[in-house]
């Protein structure tokens, strides 16, 4: 295979492509400052993310990171600071897909805005950060990648500088983010204190040594450190109690950015959580050291998060805010992937990974629809959306697909991933979690159906002129919808990939 001849660092190609695209955008910006040539800017960003996507898919298909006969093994770079395995590639795919969708959609959404080049380059930078998070294998790289993803995000959220909502959202996001990263870093320092290492594998080795020895004096310290790490992940994944930024940030940010944050950023948050907890803190030795099973924390978080998210979403009036809360709810679902690790089976984590992929399409699509509505200028509440289907049946059909898929109803992709989470929870013996999943799914039907009701069933409150059909937004939305549908019959490969990826990490 061709790949054999490539140098090892080439395994990072998806990430590098994203970074390169960001730099290219800076170059374009410096050649032609204040450029508003949307075609070039959005085109570059899209091309870059698609290239990253293509490479990641190619690598996955070629077996990069897959152990065994056909694979090329897990590639470790820079002394294990970065790692490229199937999970890394999987999440790079998720990030790249979402980035591509967001870039395409922004073509129309950002029409007439200043600072377009900055916008796209910030998106690409954040994407780079997220891709790096997927590959990060040390607490150092994790923290840096996390910040690389976060800092552009803060700026992106508040990029509508004259929009009070956007600014307020940026502020809240930033403040909560700063607090969380402080807690996260402090957690890192404690873990470092307890073990003396920051590289994940090394931490695991040290922990095993400690457990085999007298156990060390730092049980509590380590425990607190782990808990603080969880806080950092919880922030990134918008899980309770670090979710408070999410409703406002998603509501206030430009819709494509909301899509970006709620899908890609969340996925990236999960990948580091998966990696850290599977690699650095093997369940048995950690339990021995800190006296408590860390999955308990995730069980609690999962249940509380999905409940808070779904309940709060049920009575929202603002569509974007409803989606924001639903995003919190979905974070709760994905947390099952960690909560269920106690059973020692990779399936539940694989299920969470699948969910994040499907979620990447359906949730991005949903937020992009909101973007479309903002583009049309129809308003933000459910009422404002009333009767949109009369003027834009295709987009609204896509929205219906997203909503039902988010609700986990067949025949859409969201059904399968949710089901796999459900079985995963049951297999892991987490009946409470499974029950909470069911109850929350039932509740979520109500508010998702409510949005479908608004666009399809209700009559418009005010008369509207005919609505435009912006190419970029439409293309992104329709593509996301098609993928959401196709992921039902075509779920087989996703299952295989995700399970393989999870198996490697968990093993």
């Amino acid at each position, binding site marked *: 295979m061709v790949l054999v001849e490539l140098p090892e660092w080439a395994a990072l190609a998806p990430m590098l492509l994203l970074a390169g695209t960001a730099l290219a955008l800076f170059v374009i910006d410096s050649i032609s400052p204040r450029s508003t040539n949307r075609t070039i800017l959005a085109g570059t960003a899209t091309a870059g993310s698609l290239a990253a996507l293509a490479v990641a898919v190619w690598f996955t298909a070629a077996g990069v990171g897959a152990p065994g006969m056909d694979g090329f093994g897990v590639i470790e770079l820079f002394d294990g600071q970065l790692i490229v395995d199937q999970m890394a590639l999987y999440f790079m795919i998720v990030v790249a897909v979402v980035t591509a969708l967001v870039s395409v959609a922004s073509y129309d959404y950002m029409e007439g805005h200043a600072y377009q080049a900055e916008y796209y380059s910030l998106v690409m930078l954040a994407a780079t950060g997220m891709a790096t998070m997927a590959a990060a294998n040390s607490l150092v790289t994790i923290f840096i990648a996390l910040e690389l993803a976060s800092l552009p995000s803060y700026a992106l959220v508040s990029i509508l500088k004259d929009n009070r909502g956007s600014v307020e959202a940026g502020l809240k996001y930033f403040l909560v983010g700063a607090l969380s990263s402080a807690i996260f870093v402090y957690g890192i320092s404690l873990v470092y204190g307890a073990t003396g290492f920051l590289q994940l594998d090394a931490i695991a080795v040290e922990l095993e040594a400690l457990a085999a020895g007298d156990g060390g004096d730092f049980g509590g310290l380590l425990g607190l450190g782990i808990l603080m790490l969880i806080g950092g992940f919880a922030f990134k994944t918008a899980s309770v109690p670090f979710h408070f930024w999410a409703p406002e940030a998603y509501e206030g940010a430009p819709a494509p950015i909301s899509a970006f944050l709620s899908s890609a950023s969340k996925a990236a948050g999960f990948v580091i959580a998966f990696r850290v907890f599977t690699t650095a803190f093997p369940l048995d030795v950690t339990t021995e050291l800190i006296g408590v099973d860390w999955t308990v924390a995730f069980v609690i978080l999962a249940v509380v998060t999905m409940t808070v998210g779904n309940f709060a979403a049920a009575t929202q009036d603002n569509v974007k805010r409803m989606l924001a809360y639903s995003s919190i709810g979905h974070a709760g679902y994905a947390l099952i992937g960690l909560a269920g690790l106690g059973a020692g089976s990779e399936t539940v984590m694989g299920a969470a990974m699948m969910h994040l992929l499907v979620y990447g399409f359906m949730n991005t699509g949903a937020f992009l629809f909101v973007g479309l509505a903002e583009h049309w200028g129809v308003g933000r509440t459910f009422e404002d959306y009333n009767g949109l289907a009369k003027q834009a*049946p295709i987009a609204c059909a896509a929205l219906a697909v997203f909503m039902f898929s988010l609700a986990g*109803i*067949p025949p859409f992709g969201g059904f399968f991933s949710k089901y*796999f989470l459900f079985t995963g929870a049951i*297999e892991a013996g987490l009946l409470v979690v499974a029950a909470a999943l*069911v109850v929350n799914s039932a509740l979520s039907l109500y508010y998702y159906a409510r949005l479908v009701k608004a666009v399809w*069933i209700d009559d418009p409150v005010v008369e509207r002129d005919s609505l435009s059909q912006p190419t970029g937004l439409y293309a992104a939305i329709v593509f996301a919808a098609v993928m959401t549908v196709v992921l039902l019959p075509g779920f087989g490969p996703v299952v295989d990939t995700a399970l393989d990826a999870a198996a490697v990490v968990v093993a």
Partner: protein
Amino acid sequence: MMIEALIGVALIGALVTFLAPNRIAGKLAFAISLIPAALSLWMFATFDGSGNALLGGELAFESQAEWIQFGAYAISWFVGLDGISLPLVVLTTILVSLAIVSSWTPIDDRESQFYGLVLFIEANLIGVFVALDFFLWFIFWEAVLIPMYLLIGIWGGPRRKYAAIKFFVYTNVASLLMFGAFIALVFGLGDAVTSFALPEITAAMLDGGPDGFFGVGGTTLMSAVFVAMFIGFAVKVPVVPFHTWLPDAHVEAPTPASVLLAGILLKMGTYALLRFNFTMFPTDVIEPFVVPIAVIAVISVIYGAMLALAQTDLKRIVAYSSVSSMGYVILGLIAFTQFGVGGATFQMVSHGLISGLMFMAVGVIYNATHTRMVTDMSGMADRMPVAVGILIAGAFGYMGLPLMSGFAAEYFIFFGAFGSEFLEYAPIFTALAMFGIVVVAGYLLFAMQRAVFGPYNLETDYDVRRAPLHDVAPMFVLLGLIIALGVAPDLIFEMITDAVDPILEGGEL
């Protein structure tokens, strides 16, 4: 590949119609729907299956393909037909075609979307009846709800939004319960099964069942799952006290949606009860619940009929009467005899035809009068003799007039239930349930007397004319089918009993 063609035509047709211009959507959808109808009739004619699909019977038009392997259990595309499902598939295709024709008059807004959804629902309904893999089945089962939700919500009556969301959430919650229970059951079976193929699961269930799960013993697990699934399906059927979504949904739904809702969607519930609860579970699991279920069945029959008696909205009357009729089906199923279960299946088809006819007839009257309240009109027979004539015929069919399919169905059920050894006090339960035939006559005749007879009067001041041909033609077709099945129930009853017999034998293992 026949089944794939059946579903595929409907799905592609749905997409094509959705994108077609409103002007031609109705005719186009009808033309497309004729293809599955013809196909299914051809399948009916060439049907060569035998036995029960879940109990190792010879399947007709079987096809199977791997799909997803997750955890210990494979999910596959697995479809096939037996004597129970084929009549229901034919019912579906025919009723959909007729429902489309009956929509030409009332639907005058967003036609292409409407007909697209109708075809989409057809694809899924067929899927429900042909799927033999639990997952595949569940996907179709749930996918039915979405188009129906929209059909009710968009083209429905004044309270359509409430009705639609109630229907959607209520039935979905029930599905979740059922789904969760079934998954628990499969997990409880452990290594005994390797896939979600229903025949495999059935075999494992009858061959000892689950060992237990989460510290719950096998028998307890089965009982719990049985109850949970019963409730899940009971909502769909619906059975008292889970029926309250039905009248709302029916009343608000546009005529064709009501036709499909009553005609086929309710049958999904009873079909599932038959396929799951009464085929998979060994009799000793069912035994403790026999009398309670029979009580529920009798209550459904009588209480549903009483509720119908109190209504003045024609559609509401028919809606509650569906609750009542479905009670018979439950009684037939729980009787666990050839005539009971076979009659219940027969009743599914029969009630599909009759309630479809009734809703169409009520719809035609509504098209002309813009009211369904029996208090608002009288003497409609004067202005719409043909439509009213068919309404009366349908009403008598509903009452179980001999030589119409309703009688055959009810008679089979009563006969099967009366001599049931499985059900204690069977004669008493049967006799009580049979009293429904008096009440049904009561409320239908009261409504007829007020609405269609007497001196002509209409509160809504519309100019009532004879219904156009395409409004009454579908009803004639239905009436013909109803009479055909009433005169010659063996057209399908033979096929049904062939598939039912293994259940009764399997249950005696």
